[in-house]
Structure formats: C-alpha cells, structure tokens
C-alpha cells in the first residue's frame, strides 16, 4: 500500500519536473561520471592537493627534468623546509623542518606506495640517486601525514610515483634516456609499458655510475678517535663518494590484482670511513634493496578493499680499510692498517588490509591493519686481527659481532579514519593509529584535520596529529661499538604537530600558500661521544612558517619559490639546558624560473639558499656557513621526433657547499659538489 503511495508521489514529482528523456539522463550520468573520474585522477595525482586536508608539495618529473634536476635528492632540496644532511658513511638524509638531523628514520620514502626505508639505518640514501627521468611525480608530505597507510612518518614522507601509474583515458609513453656529466657521470635507462584490457606490464631500468671524489679531512684521527697517540696518523685527501648502481622495477596489473617489485643494487664509496679514518678509493659500501608486493584492490558498491602483502630485503655491506697503517691501539700495532667487512641483511615481511566505506552520506570511513615483521637474517663481521695487528681478516662474527644477529621486531598497527565532508566548503579528516610492537609501543595516536574552502580562491587548513618514530635497528642492536651502544629499551620518539595553512588560488595555475607549524618532539633518541649509549633524552620544540608561490610573470614563463623559517629549542635532559636547534638552517629559500623562449626551447634556473647553522652543544667550531647555489639549464624539445635534449650547469658560481660534520669527527664539514655540468638525452615513443 505504502509502495503504491510513494510510486504515485514519484510519478507526480517527475511529472511536474521538466520531463527528462532517457537520452538526457544518460548525458547527465555521463557528465557526473566524467567529473568523478577526473576527481579521482586529480586526487591520486595530488592535483587538487590545495583542497585536501594535508600539506603536500608536488613536483612533476617533467617539470624537474626541465630544471636540470638529476635525481630524487636534488628534487627534495626544492621542497619547502627541507634541507639535506649527511654522515661519515655518506648516508644522506633529508631534514624536514629541523627535526633531529642526527637520527635517520625521521622521514619515510615510498616508491609507488611501497615503503623502502632500509631496516638497518631506517634511511633511504640508496634511493636518493633515483634518476628523475624515472619519476613521474614526487609528493612530499611534511609532518606525520596520513593515518590511512598505517605507517607513521615522523617528520615527513616522500612518495615517488613512477610512470607505472596509469589512468583510464591516459596514454603511456615508452622512453629511453642517457645522461652524461661531471665526475664522469654516466647514466642510461628506459621504461616500457605493455598494456591490454586486463593486463598491464610496466618495466623500468636504469644504470648509473660516477667516480665522484671530494676533498675531506683532516679525518677523525685528528680529533683523537683512536687516542692521542694516533693523532699524527690523521690524513686529509679525497673522500670516495663514487656511485655505481642499477635498478629494475616491475609493475604488473591484472584486473584487480597487482604486483610491484624492484631490485636495486647500490654501491657507493666508503666516503669518510665508518671509523672516521679516511678510506681508500676502492673501499665501498653496498646498500642493496629488493622488494616484492602483491596486492588486491576492489571496489564493490560503497566498499573499497585494499589488501597487500609484501617482502623486502635490504642489507648493509661494507668492505673497507678502517684504520690507517701503523695505528697503535693499546699496544697492538696495525702495521699495514686494519680492514673490515661488515654485513647485516634484513628481511621485512608485511601484510595490510584496509577497507574503505563510503556508504554513509558525507563520510568515508577507512579502517584496517598492518602487520610488520622485521628481522636480521644474516650477519657477519670480519676485521683485521685485533690482538696481533695482523692485517689478514679474522672472522669475529661470533666473538665480536658488530650487530645483534637475532634482531627481530614485530609491529601491529590498527588504523581508523573518517573523512567527513560537512558541506561543500568544510571537510574534516579525523582518525587514529594504534600501534603495538614487540618492544616499547607508541600506542594510540590521533590525527585531526580540517579544510575550509571559503570560495574557489581562499582555502584554510588546520591539522593536528601525533606520530612517532620507532627506534632504528642501529639504535637498538649495535654491539661492540665504542661510538654506538644499542639498546632495545628505547621509547619511540614522539611528535605532536600543529599546522595551519592558508592558500590563495590566484588562478588555475598560480597560487600562494603559507603555513605555520609547531612541532613538539619528545623523547628524542640521542647519543654522543661522551655517552655512546642511545637514550631518550632530548625534547625539542620546533616552530616556523613556510611561504610558497607559484605563478608567472608573463604568459611565457613560470615562477616558483618558497621560503621557510624554522627555529626552536632543544632540551637535553642530562645537560639540563636549552639549546638552539643544532645543524638546522633557520632560513631556507628555494625557487626556480622557467622561461619558454619558444615552443621548443626553454631556459631555466634554480636557486637555493641555505642559511647558516648552529653547532651542536659543546662544539666550539664556527657556525656552518650559509650558501647560495644557482643552477641553470637549457632544454630543447623536438616535437616532431619527440626527443629532448637538456644541458645543465649546477652550482654555477662554484659555491662551497658543506653539510655539518658532528663534533670530534672530521674537523671540516663534509664538502658537497662544486660546479658541475650535465647533458641529457631523452627519446619518447
């Protein structure tokens, strides 16, 4: 009876409306489907990031290529608030908004959604050389980021999207690329896609090498790392910073299933030596990385299922001369110096399942878990004879392991998030992560964010989130090391982040964005030469603001720049005093300018200014000097044959760029590249 009533009502209401014929209705449906599709693409590619409840910087690979950017590392230096740091092994690490540059693992790197941080350092320096031609897009989230993936980034996360990404109605091009440049840099690579209705296979490959050496020293011996009697053995010279690597990536999609795999064989020079003694040219460190992930994505009505399982191997494999000839340690004289081979391989297994439900009006609820098992699967430690000083290697794996070979950690993460579209102008995301590990837990961590879009031009965002960084393998399991004493009793480092952003959309292609942020870091892990044991002793408050502009001066150009100001103070429990943030540049200014001379030729420039940096408490050296580098490039694109030729000159004015060395290591800061030249050729099919 009731049904009939409603039917008549509906019939009636449709009668009084403009009569829609089936054709019109189809059109309307088709329009809204298109709108939805483009929205999806825009959301996935972060095209509409200004309207989303996170603060993110997106750089298109093509754009970066034009600027002469070589690799991921160089791309990251363009991100507001991001600076670079290095250490004696030259494991370079981006520093986000001044968060603890001494500890790696502050940020996470994802390649096509797969976390690739190695377990050993919780770093990803082996991926920083990822060539920009292989990158479709770099998305950098400053702050803890989304809670959905279940991975707690601490200071920031970087998503590298390769050309494996694909959307309906978009074509994909195959390409080959060659590059050549300073330090005898050679690079070759290609991408290839094979596509049918249900199946898509994508392969990328690259090989690159250089023989980079940069002046360094005097080395750590001068600071007495091997005692006062060995100071005279200290050397200066060229640090081997060479690179040799190749990588193959495979991305396979079949209907709703996908497989992502990559192997990276990365070898680099031993840089400044694991024991801070300048190594030989041929000494090397290998940081291989391999992963394979299987997944299933399915959209059923209002549900979206996302199931993944993966396995990842990474290793730390060093082979180098650790101490110079004639070194005397407690009476044992190493006449021919001392050598060492350190090897630790780690395996990570993970599985995650997420369910997204959008059946409730205005809400999109996502819930799921991620399970991770990290484990050291192999370890060996060989050194020259410590008792006799004999140079021949002795296997100390069982007697003097440099690392706990039984290291293992389980992590369980549950996350829940609701995206609530209150109205067309106001939306919220709120949710939490709950994490348990086999060591100390981070527990419950909430996140809340809001976007208020006043109109098409003015957008406000507010974000609060709490996140953590679990202590890294190195901090937990390092053994028999005078400089590092690992312990598993460390608490996770915690950070509470508050951010506000204002975005002014000037036009479809230009905007202004300013952010202010406040970070409360608690229980930061710290060690020093005085107390080499890792402990949760530092609390740091960081605050600052960022300003970004993207736009154009004329119709033929494009301008982008950002400025960030970061300051704060560290409180080290032992020393019971506040210190200004060490090793952090208060001022960072980056920008680029593209000028299109004509439709096929563009002249581009990149400028980066990094302000001076305070030293670590107790380090009496002068501040780390500020520097300004300017790069320039010229790109020619042949429309007819679809090839591109680029010339670039980096650090045009040969500025001395240094990254700070910790006290009592190398006296001078770690010098970076001077002026260099590159040429790139790319052909698309």
């Amino acid at each position, binding site marked *: 009876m009731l049904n009939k009533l409603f039917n008549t009502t509906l019939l009636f209401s449709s009668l*009084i409306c403009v009569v829609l014929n089936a054709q019109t209705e189809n059109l309307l449906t088709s329009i809204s489907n298109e709108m939805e599709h483009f929205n999806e693409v825009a959301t996935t590619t972060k095209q509409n990031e200004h309207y989303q409840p996170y603060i993110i910087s997106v750089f298109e690979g093509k754009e970066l290529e034009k600027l002469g950017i070589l690799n991921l590392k160089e791309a990251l230096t363009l991100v507001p608030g991001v600076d670079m740091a290095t250490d004696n092994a030259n494991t370079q690490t981006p520093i986000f908004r001044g968060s603890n540059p001494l500890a790696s693992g502050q940020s996470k790197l994802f390649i096509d959604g797969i976390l690739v941080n190695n377990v050993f350092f919780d770093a990803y320096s082996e991926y920083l050389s990822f060539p920009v031609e292989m990158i479709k897009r770099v998305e950098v989230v400053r702050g803890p980021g989304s809670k959905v993936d279940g991975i707690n980034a601490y200071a920031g996360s970087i998503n590298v999207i390769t050309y494996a990404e694909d959307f309906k109605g978009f074509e994909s091009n195959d390409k080959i690329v060659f590059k050549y440049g300073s330090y005898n840099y050679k690079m070759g690579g290609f991408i290839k896609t094979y596509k049918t209705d249900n199946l898509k296979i994508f392969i990328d490959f690259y090989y690159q090498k250089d023989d980079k050496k940069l002046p360094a020293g005097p080395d750590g011996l001068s600071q007495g790392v091997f005692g006062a009697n060995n100071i005279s053995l200290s050397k200066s010279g060229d640090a081997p910073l060479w690179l040799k690597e190749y990588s193959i990536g495979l991305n396979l999609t079949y209907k709703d299933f996908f497989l992502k795999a990559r192997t990276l064989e990365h070898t680099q020079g031993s840089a400044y030596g694991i024991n801070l003694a300048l190594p030989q040219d041929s000494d090397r460190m290998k940081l291989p990385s391999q992963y394979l992930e299987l997944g299933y994505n399915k959209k059923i009505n209002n549900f979206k299922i996302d199931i993944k399982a993966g396995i990842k191997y990474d290793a730390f494999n060093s082979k180098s001369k650790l101490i110079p000839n004639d070194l005397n340690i407690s009476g044992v004289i190493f006449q021919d110096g001392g050598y060492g081979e350190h090897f630790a391989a780690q395996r990570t297994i993970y599985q995650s399942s997420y369910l997204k439900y959008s059946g409730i009006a205005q809400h999109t609820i996502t819930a799921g878990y991620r399970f991770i098992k990290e484990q050291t699967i192999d370890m060996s430690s060989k050194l020259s004879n410590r008792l006799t000083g004999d140079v021949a290697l002795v296997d100390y794996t069982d007697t003097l392991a440099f690392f706990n070979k039984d290291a293992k950690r389980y992590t369980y993460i549950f996350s829940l998030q609701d995206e609530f579209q209150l109205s067309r102008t106001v939306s919220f995301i709120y949710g939490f992560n709950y994490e348990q590990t086999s060591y100390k837990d981070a527990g419950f961590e909430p996140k809340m964010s809001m976007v208020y879009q006043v109109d098409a031009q003015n957008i406000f965002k507010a974000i609060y989130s709490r996140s953590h960084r679990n202590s890294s393998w190195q901090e937990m399991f390092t053994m028999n090391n005078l400089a590092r004493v690992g312990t598993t009793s460390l608490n996770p480092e915690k950070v509470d982040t508050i951010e506000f952003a204002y975005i002014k959309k000037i036009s479809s292609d230009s905007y202004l964005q300013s952010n202010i942020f406040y970070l409360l870091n608690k229980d930061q892990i710290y060690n020093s030469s005085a107390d080499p044991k890792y402990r949760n002793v530092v609390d740091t408050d960081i605050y600052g603001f960022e300003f970004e502009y993207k736009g154009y001066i004329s119709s033929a150009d494009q301008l982008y720049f950002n400025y960030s100001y970061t300051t704060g103070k560290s409180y080290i429990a032992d020393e019971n005093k506040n210190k200004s943030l060490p090793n952090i540049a208060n001022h960072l200014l980056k920008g680029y300018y593209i000028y299109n001379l004509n439709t096929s030729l563009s002249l581009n420039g990149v400028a980066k200014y990094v302000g001076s940096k305070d030293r670590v408490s107790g380090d009496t050296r002068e501040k780390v000097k500020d520097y300004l580098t300017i790069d320039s490039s010229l790109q020619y694109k042949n429309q007819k044959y679809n090839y591109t030729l680029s010339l670039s000159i980096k650090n045009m004015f040969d500025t001395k760029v240094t990254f700070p060395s910790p006290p009592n290591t190398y006296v001078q800061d770690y010098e970076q590249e001077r002026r260099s030249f590159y040429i790139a050729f790319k052909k698309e099919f």
Partner: protein
Amino acid sequence: MKKNFNSLSTKIVVSIAAVSLFIILVIFSVFENINKKAFLNVEIEKANLIAKTIKPLIALNVYLDMQNKINQIAHQLIKNPNILSIKVLKNGEIINEVKSNEYKNGIKDAFIIKKDIYKPNSKINIGQLILVYSDKGYRELMEKYTKVMFILLFVLSVIFILFSLYVKKLLSPLRKIARLLKNYSPNQKIKFPFILKNNEIGLISNALNNMQEKNFQYSKKQQNINNLLEKKVNEKTMELRKQLYADTLTDMPNRLSLFNDIESADNGALLIINIDDFKEINDFFGHEIGDNVLKKISDRLKNMFSADKNIKLYRLSGDEFALFFIEKPSFDYFIKIAKKLVYYIEKMIFYHENNELGVIVSVGGTHQIQKALQKADIALKSAKKQQKSFFIYDEKLNIEEQYKENMDWVNKLKKAINQDKIIPYFQPIFNNKSGEITSYECLMRLIDDNDDVISPYKFLPIAKKSRLYDKLTEIMIEKSCSHFEHINHYFSINLSTEDIVNPSIVEYIKQKLKKYNVAEKIIFEILESEGIDSYKNVSYFINEMKELGCKIAIDDFGSGYSNFEHLIQLNVDYIKIDASLIKNLDTDSNAQIVVQTIVDFAKKLNILTVAEFVHNEEILIKVKELNIDSTQGFYLGEPLKCTIHHLD
C-alpha cells in the same frame, strides 16, 4: 471425573482464541495509533517530498529571476488535487502565489509545508516556498484502513470458529478412547477403535492396545503370585505371633504373654521363681549348660502343673519363671504351691561331666492381681534379702517395718558416733608360706547399747542414705591410722568408690597419712565390683596413693564381673579373692578352677593373692595347694578389738 469435565479441545481453542484476540487487540490498537500517525506522516512526507522535489527548481528560478518559469511550475503543481496553494517568497516578498479553487472556497483540514530556498549549491537563503497541502488523502486513507481492519477482524473470527470446530473434531477420537478406558479392567479386553488410523490417535490406540495385552498377561501372573504370598504371610504371621508371646528355649509363654494375661484377668495370683546365682552357672559352665538347666526346670514345672488348669506357666527372663493363677486360689493353697515349688526344684539334680549340680531358688508371690508382676518382684527381692526361700507380698507390713527399722538404725548410728562407739576391729592376714601375720584388715564395728558388736553390712546401706557414711569412713581412717602409728605392721582399710570420688575424704586420708606417718604401711582395699563406673577416678586415686608409698588391694575379686584388663591397668598390689569362691573351695571344683585362674594370672603380674573367708582346715589346705599367698579367715583369726601384736 464427572463433576467438572474440562475439555482439552475447548481449552486449546479458547486459549488460542484468547491469545489471538489479545494479540489482535494489541496490534489493532497499536496499529490504530501508529498507523494514524504513520498515515499522517506519509501525507506530510508526500507534501515534503513534493516541496523538496520542486524546491531546487524553484530555487534555481528564483535565483535566476525567472518569474515565468516559477509561475509555470506553480500552475503545474496546483493541478495536483491535494495541493491547495503555492506561495514563493524572495527575500521576504511574495513573488508568486497560486491557489486552488477548493482553497479559495475555504477548506479547513490542511497542513502547511514551509521550505527555505537557497542559492543553488550553497547555503545562502534567498527566499521561501510555502505549500498548503490538503489532508483529504489522509482522511480517505484512514477510512479505508478502518474498513480493512474490521473486515480483518470478521475474517479472523470466522477462521477461529472454523478452527475450533476443527480442533474439536480432531480431538473427538480421544474422547471416545477415554470413554472406553473408563470401564477398563485388566481382566477384560477392550476393542480399541482407530488402530488403523495413521496419525497420533492411531498411535495412542495402538499403544493402549499393546498395554492392555501386556496388562492382561501380567495380571494373570500376579494373581497366582498373590495367592501363594497370602499363604506364606499367614504362616509367618502365626510364627511371629508365637515368638512374640512364647519363649523359644522352653516353649513357655513369655513376659509379654504374662502381661497380657494379667491385664485381661479380674482376679488371680502370681508367683515368680528365681534361680539364685544362675549367672554363675552360665559363667562357669557355659550357656549351654545354663540353658539345659533352665529347660529341665521348665520341664519339671510343666510336669508339676500340667494337671492344674488354673495355673499357667511363663518364663520371664533368663533365670525367672512365673506361675499365674487364673482364678485366685485360697491363700493356704497359694502358700502350699509356693513351698512345693521350692522343694521340688531345689531337689532337682543336674549333671555335667560327672558333676552334680543343684540350684537354690527364691520365690516371691502376690495374692493380689493389681500390679501383680511388680508386687511379686518386690516379694522376690524381699525373700532374697531376708534369705528366705519364699516371701508373699504384704504391702502394709513391709513398708512400715522397713521404715521403722531404718529410723532406728539412723538413731543408733548417730548415737554411736556421738558416743564414740564406732571402732575398728582388726583381723589378721597370714602368709601361707611362713605362717606369719603379714597384715591386718581393719573392719568397722558398732558397739550398741547392749555392748553387742554389730557388723557394718547391717547399717552401712542406711548410713549411705543418711549422709553419716562420710563420718564413719573418717572415724575408721583416723582410728586405724592412729592405731598403727607405732605398730610396724601393714594394715588395710576398706574404701568404697564413694569415698574415693569424695575429694574431702581423699584430702582427709592424706592428712592422716602424714599425721601418723603410716603411708608406707597402709593398704587400701577397694571393691572390685564397684570400680567400673568411676574407673578414671579410682585409677587417679590409686596412682596418687602409690606415689605416697601406699599399697592397693582389690577386695572381693571374683564376685562381680571380674575384669582382668582393669586389674592390669589399676596397678594393684593385692587381690583378695571373694568369699563366695573360697567358702566351698574344698568341695567345689568349679571354684577351684576359677581361683586357680586368678592366682596364675596374679602371679604373672606379680600381684599377691589373699584368700578370704577361710573357715576350716580343708579350705586352708586347698588355699595353700592353690599357691595363694596369704589367708584371712575365722579359721586362723577372727576380727578382734586389738591386734595380736598387742596381745603379744
């Protein structure tokens, strides 16, 4: 069954009907309420839906200032008979209003839907849409609904009536079966209907039929068993009845039978015959001999009185028989019978392993039927007490006499105590080996006004009742101890259990022992027969005294239920063998056996034995022969006012 037949089918139908009615009523009333609201809501919803549907369109056109389109929509809308009026306001001003004819004529029942109009895709209010909606639809709907409900009710009622009829019909076979079962008896078979039916009724009929078949078989079997059982029960009842009223040993009626007979008698007389010391026969010769004796006595009694129909014989207990005179005989005849009884039974001789055995009997009687058994009992006890062979109960005489005698004795005792006429006599006890005096037993004597020496068994029971007893004991202790203060001889004092459990007496003893320093010489003679009840106290007393150096003797050992076990535990020094065993020791072989046993036993425990009541030479010889350590008795020395020692 007939008074109030509650038909199950009626019940089922009525209860289903009641529950259904209740449910229907509830549903009906709830529906009435809910549906009314729901229907109203539906109407409002309808109106809302219309308003909601056209609102965006109106809003769009208001926003775009398209007057003619609004008007067009409004006119289309008013064609709906339920919509009475449409009003569109922009920023508070009416920009369009359309009314139906009905509304113009003034119609009451209607509701108004007001909707704010917003700028498309925003929250900015730009006007209002007001819809007047007739509730005609609602009223029509309600009417329809009520009609449907009544039809439903009617249909349901009809269904129930049909349903109840059907249930009745379904259950009617049960009634038929029940009627048949009413007259059921196991012996008679009923022919059940519906056995072939393939439903529950069929099952019941079949089951009943099977049951009936089995019942029939069973009842037949049962009848046979019952007959047999009845017979057996009768037999057994007879037997039990006989056992209840008869004694199995002698086949005589028992005490219960006598009770009944006395109860039912108007007059009559009773004699009770008791065999003296029958227990000893049992103890010494065994129950078999005892039973044999009893049987023979009963046979004799039966022989004696078989001719006399007035006399009925009973066995009352182990050693007691009774003669009941159904008709009261003359007193003389009664006495004569009693005498005859004693004479003939005592004359009987029984044999056991070449030994001749005789019995002594006492007879008590009453010539009155009231409380005959009690009275005869008293008479029997009196006979025993006065050591007469028979005594006839005479109520008056007996009580008064006894009372007087008691009073006399109390006066005599008081007087004697006051005049210091209670004195100890000393009887020597001789060592059978050396012939020397080993000790003296101190015996209480009362010297009366005639200077007669009176033995205590005459006054001690009365003394015990009159509370003079403690005094007597104290006198004996004081006098005996003081007597032996300077005489270097053992002496013994008799103590009863009453003395031992009396703390003041015990304290008194201790004082005197200390005062006269005789603890090492004194022997306490304790009656063995009394010791059982207050064994603990006795044991305590003995230990206490032995600690002081005193010695302990058990007096009259073998008179009561002699218990060797107790003897061991009491840790005594002497056993004085009871006179009853000694007095015929020379002739009585049984006594010899008993004494021999006691002596052997005592020797093993290092206890010295004393033979009392040795009154002639033959006995003394026997005593010595039996290795008894010491002898006491008239034959060797009577109790005297002073010790022989003194005499010396």
